[in-house]
Each structure stands twice: as structure tokens, then as C-alpha cells.
């Protein structure tokens, strides 16, 4: 109430200063009644009665601040009770109410209502509300920072521990491996007998397929079809990132290409092994590549060298990979993948099969160790930029959902954004964590998720997440302003700025 009284007092005490229509107070001195007017650009001087006479005399439009005569003029609305503003002079008397004080429509027949006070009130209310939110949000943020710092220390310590125990574990694994190999000896021999002829034939087919795939991949990679695969072309395939740290640098790409900027088909052959395993085809990026299947099959009889990563893990919430030693994570899959287009291998005889089964049981035990996951996880987490004070750290490994009429959107900060049809259907990747992408002065206000599932004829899907201050951490809206480019509004306390001391509308009073 006090505020309002104060406002009213100011309003009544304000004296309307006489000046030509459309001139802001700050420029009043240039328009002196009765004296010749010099265009503000100095280009010419005209009698004062040609100011606002509905004919444009000045190149800069300064002689017609209150009419629509000049194409480049601007009109000042005082908007007492709200914010003063300039509008293009083409909006004067066009029948549309632009200034809340109605001053732009003085001769058009339009009936405008003065809405300035109402707008001013609403603005103050919303500013106040925002300030309150900011205040509470900022408090929460302090807590978050505190927790994050503690958490970070914990994790660093843990990482140290893990690194320490890693050696022990590796020794244990080595011991187990010896046992395992001994156990496998009979099996291997049986298999070898059985597989010998089959493998020869398969190797031949595989070799052809491999070179066909290589040629195909080369063509796909060679975006500009210049006969060379270059570093920039490689960079568009983030899955090739050797350390999978979310940033695929030029240096890394160059590394993949064997240290050069681009390779032709011949040279590509020599670096093929660097590329082939991780490469995801553009045409079927969201389905597991069939090549993957056949590769697993080939390797199946000798799984000890199996160091490839399972593509399907990408679909899981946490795609953390066993780094030092790799074990088949899903035994049933190996069974499923017996068939591929090379034709199925003839079944093993019963004895061989028994041996294989015995081995598989052993592998399951080994897998249960699974210690590496934790190690990799921690290392990765610590590498993220969680904001200047790690205030965004709490978002890590969390997911936030928003359900619209058609889809369930899911934002897992620092990981990915996905979209899933509400009534069944497969999930679509709308982008994986890319970077902070706000403007320079507030880089943490926007998150960018990139390289999601590709679009027909278009780029791969990407999502821009706009962060606004709020007490709660919640996705408030999603949209697709352009095909395959998503926009998500996300509130969280971590973005809240320290509110200025509550004298919020003082600056407005000055403008009355």
C-alpha cells in the first residue's frame, strides 16, 4: 500500500512538460517553440512550423517525431504508470493501439484504453514474485553448492580408493583368468574341430562384407564427396570420439585419421580399424547396425578378445562402460544372434555344447565382479562442468519428465534428452549432452544437447534447454520450433542469481 501511495503522489506531482508530440524529454531542448529547427543529423534547418506538419523534411526523420511522415522516425510514448518507450513512427495513427497511454492514436479514430497503470501494476507484481522466487531459489542454491562441494570431495576420495583397489582386483582377475583358461582348454579344442571349415568360408564372406562396409562408410563420411574423409567430416560423428568424453576434438579426429587432415580410400583402409567399431551409420543410426551382429558372431568362439562395447548400452540410462576388462554383459544376446545373413553355423554336437555351457556359467561369475563400472563413473562425473560453484552437480544422474498430449519428454541433465510417445512406441534421442551455450554473460543459462537421432533430409536432432530461476527443479515446457530442433524450458534453483536488495521499483519512479 505504501508503494501505491508513493506512486500516486509522484504521479500527481509530475508536471507535463510542453514539447512537440512524440519527443522524449531527453531531446526536448532541440525542439524550441518558435525557433528554426535543425534536423538532429544537422543536415538542414527548417522553420519550426514544419516540425510535426506531416511532411518529412529531415533525412533522419527528426522533424516528424509525432507523425508517420518519415519512414525512419520514432515516436516516444511517455506511458505514465508504466515504462516509457519508443515506437516506429509508422505506428502512429495506424488504428492500432501501441502505447499504453494511447498517445500514438490521436487521429485515427481508434478507441484505445489507457492501460499503463494496469500494466505497471502487473509488472511490479510479477517482478516482486520473481524476486521472491529468486530469493528462495538463491538460498536453495547455496545449499546445493555446499552439498556439491562435499559430494565432490567424497567422490575424489572414493576415486583414490578405487584406484588403489584396482590393482588388487586386477591381480585377482588375473588369477581367475588362469583358472578359466585351463577350464576352457577342452572346449576350445572341440570347437576348433567343428569350426575349422565353417570359419574359412565365413572369413571369406566377412572379408568381402568388411570391405563393402568400409567403402560404404567412407562414402557416408565423405559428406562433400570430394574423395577424401577429412577431420570436419569425422567430427560430425561424435560416436567416434576415442575417449567418449562428450567432446570430440579435432586433435582426436586427426588421431583417428592417423595424424593427417584427410585420407583417401586407400589410406582409409589403414585407419579402418580405428573407425569401424564405433561408427554409426547415418542411415540407421538409431537401430543397432547389423554389422555389429555379425562381428559378434565371428568373435563368439573366442570371446576372450572380445573388447567391443555393446551398442545397445547406449539406450540405457547409464551408459557407463567397463573399461579395463570387458565381459559380455548379456549372455542371452549371444544366443539370439546365431543367425545373420551369412547363414547359420551348423549346431555343435552335444559334447561341444556341454563344454560351451560350462564356460558360460563360469563367465557369469566373472561378470559379477563388475567393479570397473564404479571407477569409470566417478572419473566421468568429476570431469563435468557443473557451474562455477558446482551448483548444477545435483542434476547429474537425475532425470526430469514432462508429459504433453502426445509425448513424454525426459531431460537427464549432462546426459541426454529423449522423447517417447505416450501411448507406446520407441524412444527417440533428442540429443546428448553437448555444452553450456548461453550468451557470454550468462553461459550457464542454456544447455545444448546435440547429435540425437537423425532426421529425414535433416540434421540430427538437438535440444536447447533454457534454464530459469525457480524453487523447484522441473521441465516446464517443450516445443519443436523447427523440425528436429527442440526447445525445453527448465527451472531450477541453481540458476538463481542473488537478488538485489528489495527496492525493486525505485528505478521506475525516476522515469515517471
Amino acid at each position: 500500500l505504501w508503494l501505491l501511495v508513493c506512486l500516486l503522489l509522484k504521479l500527481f506531482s509530475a508536471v507535463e512538460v510542453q514539447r512537440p508530440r512524440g519527443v522524449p524529454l531527453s531531446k526536448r531542448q532541440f525542439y524550441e517553440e518558435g525557433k528554426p529547427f535543425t534536423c538532429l543529423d544537422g543536415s538542414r534547418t527548417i522553420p519550426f512550423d514544419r516540425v510535426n506538419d506531416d511532411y518529412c523534411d529531415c533525412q533522419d526523420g527528426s522533424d516528424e517525431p509525432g507523425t508517420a511522415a518519415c519512414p525512419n522516425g520514432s515516436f516516444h510514448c511517455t506511458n505514465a504508470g508504466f515504462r516509457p518507450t519508443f515506437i516506429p513512427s509508422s505506428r502512429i495513427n495506424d488504428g492500432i493501439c501501441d502505447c499504453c497511454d494511447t498517445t500514438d492514436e490521436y487521429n485515427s479514430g481508434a478507441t484505445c484504453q489507457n492501460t499503463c497503470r494496469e500494466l505497471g501494476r502487473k509488472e511490479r507484481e510479477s517482478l516482486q514474485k520473481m524476486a521472491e522466487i529468486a530469493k528462495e531459489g538463491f538460498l536453495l542454491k547455496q545449499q546445493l553448492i555446499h552439498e556439491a562441494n562435499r559430494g565432490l570431495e567424497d567422490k575424489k576420495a572414493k576415486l583414490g580408493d578405487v584406484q588403489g583397489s584396482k590393482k588388487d582386483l586386477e591381480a585377482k582377475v588375473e588369477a581367475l583368468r588362469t583358472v578359466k583358461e585351463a577350464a576352457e582348454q577342452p572346449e576350445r579344442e572341440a570347437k576348433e574341430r567343428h569350426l575349422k571349415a565353417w570359419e574359412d568360408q565365413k572369413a571369406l564372406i566377412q572379408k568381402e562384407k568388411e570391405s563393402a562396409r568400409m567403402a560404404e562408410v567412407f562414402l557416408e563420411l565423405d559428406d562433400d564427396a570430394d574423395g577424401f574423409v577429412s577431420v570436419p567430416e569425422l567430427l560430425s560423428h561424435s560416436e567416434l570420439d576415442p575417449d567418449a568424453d562428450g567432446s570430440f576434438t579435432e586433435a582426436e579426429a586427426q588421431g583417428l585419421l592417423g595424424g593427417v587432415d584427410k585420407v583417401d580410400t586407400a589410406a582409409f583402409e589403414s585407419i579402418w580399424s580405428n573407425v569401424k567399431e564405433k561408427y554409426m551409420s547415418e542411415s540407421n543410426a538409431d537401430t543397432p547396425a547389423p554389422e555389429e551382429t555379425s562381428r559378434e558372431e565371428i568373435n563368439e568362439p573366442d570371446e576372450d578378445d572380445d573388447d567391443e562395447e555393446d551398442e545397445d548400452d547406449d539406450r540405457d540410462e547409464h551408459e557407463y562402460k567397463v573399461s579395463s576388462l570387458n565381459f559380455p554383459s548379456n549372455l542371452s544376446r549371444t544366443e539370439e544372434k546365431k543367425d545373420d545373413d551369412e547363414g547359420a553355423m551348423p549346431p555343435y554336437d552335444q559334447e561341444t555344447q556341454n563344454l560351451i555351457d560350462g564356460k558360460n556359467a563360469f563367465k557369469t561369475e566373472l561378470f559379477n565382479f563388475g567393479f570397473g563400472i564404479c571407477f569409470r563413473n566417478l572419473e566421468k562425473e568429476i570431469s563435468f562442468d557443473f557451474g562455477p560453484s558446482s551448483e548444477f552437480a545435483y542434476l547429474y544422474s537425475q532425470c526430469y519428465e514432462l508429459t504433453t498430449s502426445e509425448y513424454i519428454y525426459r531431460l537427464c541433465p549432462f546426459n541426454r534428452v529423449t522423447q517417447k510417445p505416450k501411448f507406446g512406441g520407441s524412444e527417440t534421442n533428442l540429443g546428448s549432452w553437448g555444452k553450456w551455450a548461453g550468451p557470454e554473460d550468462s553461459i550457464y543459462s542454456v544447455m545444448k544437447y546435440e547429435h540425437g537421432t537423425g532426421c529425414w533430409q535433416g540434421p540430427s536432432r538437438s535440444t536447447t534447454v533454457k534454464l530459469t530461476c525457480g524453487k523447484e527443479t522441473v521441465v516446464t515446457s517443450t516445443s519443436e520450433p523447427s523440425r528436429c530442433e527442440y526447445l525445453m524450458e527448465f527451472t531450477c534453483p541453481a540458476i538463481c542469481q542473488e537478488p538485489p536488495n528489495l527496492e525493486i521499483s525505485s528505478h521506475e519512479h525516476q522515469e515517471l
Partner: protein
Amino acid sequence: MAPLLVLGLALCLSGTWAVDKGNFKTCEQSAFCKRQRALKPGESPYRALLETMELTNTRLTLQLINDNNKVRLLLELYRLQGNITRVKINELKPLKPRYEVPDVLIREPTTEPLSVLSQDENGVVLSLGVESQRVIISARPFRLDIMEGSDVLMSLNSRGLLAFEHLRMRKDTQADPEAEKKEEADPANQAETTKEEEEKVEDGMWEETFKSHTDSKPNGPSAVSLDFSLPGVEHVYGIPEHADTLRLKTTDNGDPYRLYNLDVFQYELYNPMALYGSVPVMVAHSAQRTTGIFWLNAAETWVDISSNTAGKTVFGKMLDYVQGSSETPQTDVRWISESGIIDIFIMLGPTPKDVFSQYASLTGTQSFPPLASLGYHQCRWNYNDQEDVKSVDAGFDEHDIPYDFIWLDIEHTDGKRYFTWDPHKFATPKEMLQGLMDKKRKMVAIVDPHIKVDGNYKIHNEIRSRGFYVKNKDGGDYEGWCWPGSASYPDFTRADMRAWWASMFAYDQYEGTMENLYTWNDMNEPSVFNGPEVTMHKDATHGAWEHRDIHNLYGLYVQMATAEGLIQRSGGVERPFVLTRAFFAGSQRLGAVWTGDNAAEWGHLKISIPMCLSMGLVGISFCGADIGGFFKSPSTELLVRWYQAGAYQPFYRAHAHVDTPRREPWLFGPENTALIREAVRQRYTLLPYWYQLFYRAHVTGEPVMRPLWVEYPQDLATFALEDEYLIGRDLLVHPVVEEGARGVTAYLPGKDEVWFDVHTFQKHNGAQNLYIPVTMSSIPVFQRGGSIIPRKLRVRRSSTCMEHDPYTLYVALNLQRTADGELYIDDGHTFNYEKKEFIYRKLTFANKVLSSVNLAPDAKFTTDSWIERIIVLGASKPSKVTLKTADGQEKQLEFDFDASMSVLTVRKPGMNAGADWTMTFQ
């Protein structure tokens, strides 16, 4: 849009961007075309039976007989008002009636008397009444020549290619027994058929298969064909729609030009393939005369063009000329249609404008569009929801770019059910429309003719229960695949169906609509994704007629019914605005046309000029191409250039495919936003000129956007120009359509003319090729010396906001120091101009006096607009300028004179734009 669902997949696999030609027939694959084209020039089997000639006051009739099969034809010849000759040829006694195209001619043309000048056993000579024009009908073989004095203007059947496949009973082995029985039961018929010589039964006469589609052809072969020779003619134009040069090419070494309305996915440039629309009108031009041929047939049509000079080099032509031994240059044309009759209108000019008015007298003129529709249109497939519409609308204000219409494509509907709104995305359409109306802006929503087959959809249920759908060959409702999935197609050839459709636009039927919502008819070829050549089966039926007979007319009927709906909903007061993709002769009466699904490529920008010029020549003035290109994403440079070029084409709409990134004008950095803003602003300043040109087009039928030769018919250098054109008579535009252009060379016509650069006011002489250096902001445009063009320089956020604004008159003096122009003003949106509520004035500058004289004294309209400025280009400095108004008052006016450019600017004369006045420059 195109059937991307179906073809897109194929495209995706093949990975190319060109049209899949395999989806569309070549002449060789179209049985009747192949059959007819196999017929080579030679002696015609047709003979005129002069003894059967009957001449009444209004028409001559005569029988023709084919000596090979004894089938008789009936020829009718009419002399029509305005120097037009109509020739109709039909079977004398067809087995069943053959289709004659209705609803295209605006009325039964007025005939004029014919008289026989002489007659003997070889032929008849008839007088055409004017200028010693005669028609000579030769009897054996039949041939028709139109003469003026000793010159042959045009000959018909001179190459003996008249062919008329008479309707017949099926006789081949596959004939169904019932038909044979019928034949036997009809002795008269049998007698008739036995008279015939054995007719060869060829493949494709009774059934034809293209890809997986079989056309059952129950009526058998029914094609018609005729040749025309045009002595003295080397340049022919028209027969849109083709993505090809303005000047038509000879077709000897390829396919004929095809006229068959088709939804062609990613069409290819410089190609005679059929596109979305067809106007079977060809204009022939030489320095001596302009003539036209209107082939009134709505079936699939092919046009062959050959020329005796086409192969000759310039040197060869020169040699002929020097030696005087040349044969006359001649263009030969041959039309082939699948069914119907031969019904041709020969428009004898002799000037280009005579041909325009002759054609307009037959099929009508360009509809007079609402003024706002000449402004800028912002479209995209799709604006997602009301929020999106609101923010795009706000974006225009924020960036101070004017626009009049924002468009909604198919996604705005509830599941592609036209006449509905998506309940989530467009839950409160009236609120949205009111928001636009508050800004004096408008909206267009799409209504396509394919109707979702869905028992819960009111429109479908009504059409089905009324039996209004097109039927398939077996009599059931025709169903095809289109945007909504399974869809049926209303039979728009039925007047009762059209009336019902029109009634659906009433505000209480089409819920959520208001008077600022207009309509867009897309996919009206009709597009049928799973149909032969992506359109309707030819053996589908429209009452007694096959789709084969009416195909090219379908799109016109859709637009006709829609435009009628918009008129009716306003109680006949408001002018409609309907955009169509498919069109036919007469579509100019119904609204605007665009060049369909082009691509964001420089070649597509370039071809938009000849494509729209070709349409203008055959009456369709309100033409434009998707700014920026529909498919693919334009480079920023291409987008800017397209906005600049489009600002000077009649229909100015940006549009984009759903899969392309957003491209609203402000998304490319402040510099490019400014370039686009400037282009759109130039458009808005010229709206008074565009509007009066459309009024002229509406009254006279002359094109708004026209090739140079229309105004300079004797200047051979202009005959093939298609990189520049005229807007009206007085503005010459040579847009920049090349990537990275540093300059353009514009041909300025007219030996004794001068042209003024509209931006710099620099004067240039006519009859020269002028090199103009260009930057990204350049749009080379010139005003003809001798013209007066009104502009409104106070560009506001929409054209409606500018209604009461004052005019600036640009007076460009010629070498004789004279100029003239017009000023047309009305309310901009109603039919009240038909009640003479308008201002139409003649502006003249002569003897140092500029005056405004009323051209329509019986018309009345008042305007608030006044004259705020007069700019005289090529002026000399006066000592004083005096304005005298109708009340006799005189006042001296202030002025500025720029001696370096010879530009005189008269300050604020202030008289009302509708008043009489004279201004003296002493």
C-alpha cells in the same frame, strides 16, 4: 506439398534430388500420344464434303469424311466478336456423346455473320468481315487457311495430322461377350461398322498399364489431334505449366510439352513434363503480328512444336536473308488430346493486347484481388500452434517488417480433416484470428479437396450420404491415399456439389473462422499418392463422364467452389482470396496461383520468372513462386535474393517444407534482416501501382507481369528475354538471380526512350544493354520515361494500416518531356467497385503542366488520401510551381531541385487524391 510419404522414401534410398521421372509418363508410355505421334505429316485422309455445307447467319457447318474408314465428322465454324474464329470438330454420329468442356467460357461467345465469297468444287472462301480476312476451306484433302490479304496467318491440317479416333465397339478378342451381343443386336450400328475398313487394334486402345496401374478404357480409343502452321512465326509462348523457358522450344528431339495436372515431386527445370496446372493456350508472336490458339480440351494433352528455322544458325539465317532465297520462317504446332472433341479458338490479334482481350472475352479476366493479398505473405509448413503464430506475428513487429497474411498448412487441422482445427494446437482459432485482426492482418488456412474417409467426420459423412464423391470404375466411392490416409474426392464437376462445398465456408459451418481467414487449395490436381502418376485413375467417373475427360478441369472447379464459398459467407460483399496449385483456362477468374513445390536452388529462383510470365500471357496474372524455395534450405544469399526478386512478382509468399530449418526473415543476422526488410518495404511502397495494374488486368485481361515484347512487339531483341520483364508498362525489373553476382546486364528497350533507375534516379537511354554493378542490396528496377507511378512511402505493418496514407507521384519524363499514368483507389476489399464505387484518374504531364483528370466521371468514392509529394525525374528547374485546385484556388508550392540528377521534388501539395487539379511548372 508433395506426396513425400510415398515418394520421399524412394528418394531417400536413391539419395538424389531430382524428380523421379519414372513416375510420370513419356509420350511413348501414353498410348494415345504414341499412337498419334506415330502419324507423320502427309496427305490427310480427310475430305470436306462441300455439298453438306450449311451456312446460317451465325455458323457454317460442313461434314468431313475420313476416306480410310468412312467415318464422318462434323465441322462447325464460327466468326466470333473481336476477331476470333472458332472451329469445332466432332463425330457426326458418335456412339455416345463426347465431352465438351463446360464452365470455362464465361458465356456463349457472341457470333458475327460469315459470308461466302466464292465456292467451287475445290473449296469455299469465306469472308471474316474485317481487314480483308478470309477463311479458305479446301476440300481434298481437307485444309483450312486463314488469310489476310495475300498472307496466310494460320493453316489447319496443312500437314495432314487431323486425326479423330471415333468411338467404336470393342472387337478384339478380349471384348466381353455382352458388348459383342449388344453390337449384334444393333443392326444399324453393325452396318456402320462393317463399312469401315479393318481398323488396326493396337495395344493400349482398350486397356493400358503404367507401372502397377491399369487403365480399363471402357470407351476405347478416343484421341483427337490437329496441326496448325504459323507462317512467319519463330516465337511461340504459353501452354503453361512447365518449368521451362518463356519461349517454347521445338520438341522434335524429345517429348512434346505435356498438359496433365500432376503433383510432381521435386520437379526438374527446363523440361516439357507436365506440372500442376494446364492452360491450353499458345501465343504466337512475330514483329508483324501476334495470334493465339486456344485448344479447349480438358483431357491429357500433348503439344508438339517444330520450326523450319530452329536448326539454323544465326549465320544461316543471315545468309538466307542476304540471298533473298529463304523460305518463310514457320512454326508448326500439333495438339493431341486423349478424349473430348476438337474445339479451338483462333485469336487473330493482331497486337499482343488484342490477343489478351480476345482470350479474356472467352474465359474472363483476372479476378480483382483484395489489396491486402498483394502484400507480403508469411507461410511455412507448418506454424505449429497458436503460440507460434503469435510469436511470428510479433517477430514482424519487432523487426519492423510489414506483412499481411500468415498461413497455416495441413498440420493445423484435426488429423487432416479440412474445415477443422487441431483441438490442442489451435484450440481457440477465433482468439488467434482476432489477435491478427487487431493488427489489421489476415490468415490463410489450407483446405484440400481430399476428404478423410472417417465415419466420425461430418464433411465425409455428408458428401458420402449425398453421393457427391467421384466414383471408381465399379461404381463405388473412389478412394485414394493422401495426407489423411485413405481419402475420397468430392466430384467438383457437379454444380450441386460445388454449391454444397461453398456453403461449408459459412461462419456457422466452418467453426472458428472469421472474415480475416482466407483459403488455400492445394493438392487439387488432384493428388492421389497411390494413383497412377500420383493422380486419379482415368477410369474413375464423374456422372456420365470419365475422369479422363475432365482431369485438367478438376483443380479449377475446386477453386471455383471455394471462392464461391468465401463470397457467399460475406453475403456477396467481400472479394475472396483463394490460392490454388492446379489450374486450367479460366482459373484467372478465381484467385491466385503459385508454381508449386520448387526448391531452394538458384535455378528455381531464376525459372520463377519465365514460369509466371508464361501464365500471365494466358490470363493468369496473380502468380508467384515460394520465396526461398519449398524443398531444401536456402543459403542466406539465395534467400535474400529471392525476397528481392519476389518483391517484384505478383504473388509474394515465403514458404518452406516442414523438414527445413526455420527461416523467418530475422533469423539470418541483422544485416540480412535489413536487406529483407528493405525488399518487403519496396513492395509495400509500390502497392498502389500493383493494385491499379490488377484493376487493369481485371478490366482488360492484360497481364500484370509481362514479357518485354508485349510492349515492344517489333523489337526482336526482346522476344526471348526471360531474365527481365515489365510490371505493367512502366517498370522494368531485372532481378539478381545468380549466386555471387557482381553485376547484371539489363536490356533497356525503346530506341527513343529513357529509363530511370528507381533507386538512384539515374537516367539511361533505351535500346541498349546496360551493365549494372550490384551489391547485396541491389534490385535493378527502372521506370520508363513518359510514365507516372503512384507510391505510398509510409510503409506500415500491413497494407490495411496504409489505407488512408498519402501518395507520392513519381513523374518520369521522356525525351518529349511528357508523361502519363493512372491512379485507382477503392475500398480495397469489397465488390463495391462493381457498383462504381472507386476513383480512377488519369495523370498527365505535358507542356509543363501536371494534371489529374477523372477517367470515370460516373464513379463515386471518397478517400482520405492526399498527394504529399511529387517527384519529377528528368526535370529542369522551374522558377515556380503553382497548384490550381478544382475550386479555382491557386497556391505556390515549395520545391527542391537536385541539379546533379535533374530531380524535382514538390513539397506537400496536399490536394485530395480523388480531386481534379493542375500543377504548373514555370
